Each structure stands twice: as C-alpha cells, then as structure tokens.
C-alpha cells in the first residue's frame, strides 16, 4: 500500500516532464498569440520576460516545479488568471457531472446486468446487449447534439446548454457543486433548476457507464453463479432470490468495483466533449479552450491536475477493493 503511494511521486514527476516537453514543443508562438496582432517587438519581449520564457528550458521546468509545490500552477496567458484559481472554479462542475453520471450508470446498469444474467440468452439479455453495444458505439458528442436538437430546440423540454439559469443566482457556495449546494441551502427550486440543466449532459455521460456495468457485471454474475458455493447454498435450501441478491451479487460486485476507476477515467475524457457540446463550464471546456489557444500553462496545469485526480481515484478504488473483499481485509 505504502509502496503504491510512494510510486505516485515518480509517476507524477514523469507526467510533469512529459507534459512540459509537449507544451513546449508548440510550433506556433503562444506569446505572439497572446499579445495580439498589434503588439510591438518590445511588448512581446516584455511578455516573454513576464512569463519567464526567456530562460533556458530546464530552468523553466525547475521554476515550474518549485511553483507546483507552493500550489502555483502558473498564469494563463490568455486571461491572466492563475491556473490554480481557474481550476478551482471549473473542477466542481466537472466533478458534479461525473458523479451524477456514475451514479446513473450504477443505478441503471446493475438491474440491467442482473436481468441479463437471470434471463440469460432470452430477450432481456439480447436487448441489454444491443443497448450496451449501442451506447458504447455512440459518439457521445453527436448524441448530445441530437438530444439538444430534439428535446431542447424542437420540443423545448430541457435547456440546451449551460449549467444553470442565467437569471437565477447560484445557491451559496459550499462545495461548488450546484446540486449539493442547493440541497444544503434547502432550496428545492434551485435544486430543480440545476437538475434540469444537468439532465442531458449527465445522461450522455452515463451511457458508457451503463453499457460497461451491464456487460461486465453480467459476465461476473454468470461466472459467480457457476461457483461451488452457489450449488452448496442451493443444496442447503436457501431461497433462490437470496442466492441471487445476496450471495452472488456481493461477489460479482467486488469484481465490478475494480472497474470504477477505469469508468472514472472515461468520464473525465468524455467531459471534454460533453462540456463542449453543452457549454458546461468545467475542466474539459477549459482544456479545449486552452488547447485551441496554445495557452500552455493551463494545458500543463490541467494535465497534471487531471492526472493527479485520476491517480488518486484509482488508489481509492484499490483501497476500497481491499476493504470490501474480506479475503484481503482479514488476509
């Protein structure tokens, strides 16, 4: 365990080197882009100095890492905000989206997987297989657009983009996540608004999770059902529903938990596109904008941050795996 924790450090350093190298491979001139077409030569020079771009690369790297330890991720060249500040603003939005879609994925995926396993090879199984395959095959940004078109523009059922009604103030900021904050403020009206805006993006995000959980959990359930202790339980006279919902499910879910880390990573990737389509002010949108403007400070900061979050989540998943499975806990 400790070894895992310690391993994060070199991985992180490696990641920072990789992203540093990448973002400084930029062929275009970010400084010129930031300064604008009207800039004079000395203005550009001043800008370079300001961003420490006049120093040799290794020095720049060291400066960057030094700043990292202080929590300073540099300044964005485009909007002059500290990257750390922008990240703090954007991350809760993405986190909220990812959490809701993961929950949706589990809530819909688990029953589907169970139905598919119990009615194996009959129509619920076939249907769930087709649904799962379609969900994975669907270009998520395209689906988002289609849904925007039909549900938003044509039928006016749900809002097309954004995170909240622009005319309504946010609930008081506790976590930065609107659903949570509005509940904390006991403001059901705002909660409803946040929910409405989240519906489409979360649904699009959730599809992959639903598909993954349905297929993998189904396979795990089927595998567990073949095991000896299931036959033993049946031979001892346990009711079939106890066998399925208690004995089989817990074993199968353990295997599925391991997959949550992967799912999280996927959701993060998906957020890039979903946020673009729905104008959701999160890390994904921030990343896209930074990439398009060659703003390499945010690119680095986001990459490192996302990498860190992902690694931590994977670590948490590993830990919880150890907690849930008694064989590991009481080894």
């Amino acid at each position, binding site marked *: 365990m400790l070894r895992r924790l310690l391993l994060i450090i070199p991985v992180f350093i490696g990641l920072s080197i990789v992203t540093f190298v990448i973002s400084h491979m930029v062929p275009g001139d970010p400084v010129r882009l930031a300064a604008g077409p009207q800039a004079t030569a000395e203005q550009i020079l001043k800008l370079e100095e300001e961003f420490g771009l006049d120093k040799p690369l290794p020095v720049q790297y060291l400066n960057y890492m030094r700043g990292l330890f202080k929590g300073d991720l540099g300044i964005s060249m485009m909007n002059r905000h500290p990257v750390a500040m922008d990240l703090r603003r954007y991350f809760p939005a993405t986190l909220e989206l990812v959490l809701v879609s993961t929950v949706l994925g589990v809530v819909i995926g688990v029953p589907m997987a169970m139905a598919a396993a119990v009615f194996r090879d009959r129509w619920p199984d076939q249907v769930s297989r087709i649904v799962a395959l379609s969900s994975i095959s669907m270009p998520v940004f395209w689906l988002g657009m289609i849904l925007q078109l039909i549900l938003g523009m044509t039928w006016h059922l749900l809002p097309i983009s954004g995170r909240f009604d622009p005319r309504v103030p946010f609930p008081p900021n506790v976590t930065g996540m609107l659903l949570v904050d509005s509940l904390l403020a006991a403001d059901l009206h705002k909660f409803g608004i946040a929910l409405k805006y989240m519906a489409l993006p979360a649904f699009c995000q959730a599809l992959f999770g639903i598909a993954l959980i349905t297929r993998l959990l189904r396979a795990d359930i089927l595998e567990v059902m073949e*095991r*000896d*202790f299931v*036959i*033993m*339980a*049946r*031979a*001892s*006279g*346990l*009711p*079939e*529903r*106890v066998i399925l*919902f*208690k*004995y089989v499910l*817990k*074993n199968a879910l*353990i295997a599925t938990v391991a997959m949550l880390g992967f799912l999280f990573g996927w959701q993060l990737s998906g957020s890039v596109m979903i946020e673009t389509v729905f104008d959701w002010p999160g890390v994904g949108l921030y990343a896209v904008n930074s990439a398009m403007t060659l703003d390499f400070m945010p690119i680095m900061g986001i990459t490192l941050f996302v990498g860190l979050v992902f690694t931590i989540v994977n670590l948490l998943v590993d830990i919880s795996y150890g907690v*849930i*499975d*008694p*064989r590991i806990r*009481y080894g």
Partner: protein
Amino acid sequence: MDNDLLVEIKDLRLNFRTFDGISKVLNRVNLKIWRGDILGLVGETGCGKTMTALSIARLIPCPPGEIVGGEVFFEGEDVIHKTDEEMRLLRAQKLAMIFQDPTTSLNPVFTIGDQMIDIIGSRTDTSKASRLSMLGGLGNLMPAIRALRRGARERALQMLERVGIGDASERIDDYPHQFSGGMRQRVLIATALSGTPSLLIADEPTTALDVSIQAQILRLIEELVEELNLSVLLITHNLGVVARTCQRVAVMYAGVVVESGSAIDVFKNPKHPYTVGLMRAIPTFDTKRGEIKGIPGSVPNFLNPPPGCRFHPRCEHAMPRCAEEPPPAPREIGLVHEVSCFLYS
C-alpha cells in the same frame, strides 16, 4: 411404497447438452436407500455418482441437463414433478448435503456465522427466510426476525461446538478463509446437520483433505450419523472408506448401477464382472510383486457410449446379447444383493 424406503431411483436417464453433443450421463440408474441405511456409492471418477446424488435433490441445472426417463422418489413422493418451492423446502428440511471441496463450498465474502444463520433460518417459509437472510444484521430490528436469528445463532454455536470447533462463539464471526481445510469441512458438516434431515448425502467428503484429517472427519460423520439416526448416501471412490463405514454398497460404472448389496457380500462375493475386476485390482497383503490386475480398456465416451451394456467392450464374459440389448433391470441373487447383468438373468 415401502415405508422404510427413503429414496428410490428407478431407471433414471439423464442427458447433458454439451458443445460437442449430448452426453448420456445416466443410463438407467436404479438405486434404493432405506431408512437407517448407510449406502456407499462407488465407482471411478466420472461414472455418474455425483449426478445421481444431485438428482435426488433435483440440483441438476436443466438446461443443459435433461431428465429423459425414469423416476426419483423421496419418502414416497415423486421428486421430478415437484414445484421449485417444494423442492427448496425438501432440501432445507429433509436433506443434508456435504460436498467434496470445503474450500469452494463456502461463500468467501460472508462470515460463516452469517451463512449458517441463513441456512438454519431457511428451514421456515420462503418469505421469512428471505427476509432473515437479506436483511442480515438489520433483521434484528424486527422482533419476529430477531427471534429467528437468535435461535439460529444458538443452534449454529451448538453445532460448531459439537463438531469440535473450540472457541465457537468467537470463530463464528470469522470468514471462511480464516479456517483450515479440515475446520471448514467441520463447519460444513455442522451446517448440514444443524436441522433434522432424514438423509445425508456426502459426496467424497474427505477426498480433498489431508490424510491425517480424513480419519477424524470420517469418524465425526459416523458419530453424528448414529446420534441423529440418519440415513446416508456416501459417495466415494475409496473402497477402504466403504468397507469401514458402509452397511450397503452400490457400484456404478459409466452411468449405471451394476451391482448393489451389503458391503460384505459385494466385497466377498462380487458378481458383476466390473465389480469382480475392481475387487481383484485391490492389492492385499498377499499380492505378490507385479501381480496387480487392472481392468483392460478404458472408460467409455459418454457422447457415444458403446451400444447395449456399456461395460461389454472390457468384459471377459461378454456375450453377443451384451452389445445389443441394454443391461437388464437389477435382479436379486442373494439377500439384498442385486446385479444388473445378463450373466445372471
């Protein structure tokens, strides 16, 4: 139906659908188990012993299995046509089963206490049993369930102590992987015999255990059988265990019971050529070097078994009839001693 006859299997035929074709696993099995009987079911690995036992409890998954003929009676009642619910109650209340591998027979993610309480608690009606199991510890919030759980836990502790697990009250909350192989088998025995079953089916209960533990476990089973006045179907390929523990023995080959009778009779006076070969193959103290006689040939393929009697290709007394007609129904040739062979019809 004879009141003392606990189990009667008549002409049971069981097929299994596999990828390569249909495997004819049981080919007219005839078996009787009386009350108070200790019947050993012997045969080579793969001859259908376990399938026969599972058929009594109707635990064969169908599909891919399929009962294509014959009847199974338990306490005089037709097992094949019972409802699922009736079978569940039968298994919970009247049958006790112990399987071969104690390592895999217990659910690794629940404590043995939890599992024992579940099983002891399942001897009542399904909805109560379900609630008891599903709610687990939370069930203690409901008075009816709490009483059930408490009773079950006491019974579990009682049985654990009976099978020789010392600090039962502490170990009951341990997980299966925290027990050794022998202890796990004891737990399984405790669980199986915690009710009031009429029949104990033990499928090779000692095969997966260390030799030193085997004797202990066997002795434990014998004690309990006598205490609880159980009838037993003991499946094994170890003739030594049969000789020691069983009153009667049935010999199976390739999905058929070829001979059955009292253990002494069958061992001393084997009639069926297969049994004869089996007995001959056992080395005794007098066997001289190089004298071990096996049975020529090998076990038939269940997908395409030889026609007629499945043993005829290896039988030194084979007659033309043996290849054409299926072997005859068991015929009594002595007190309780039955053979299914053309030599004796």
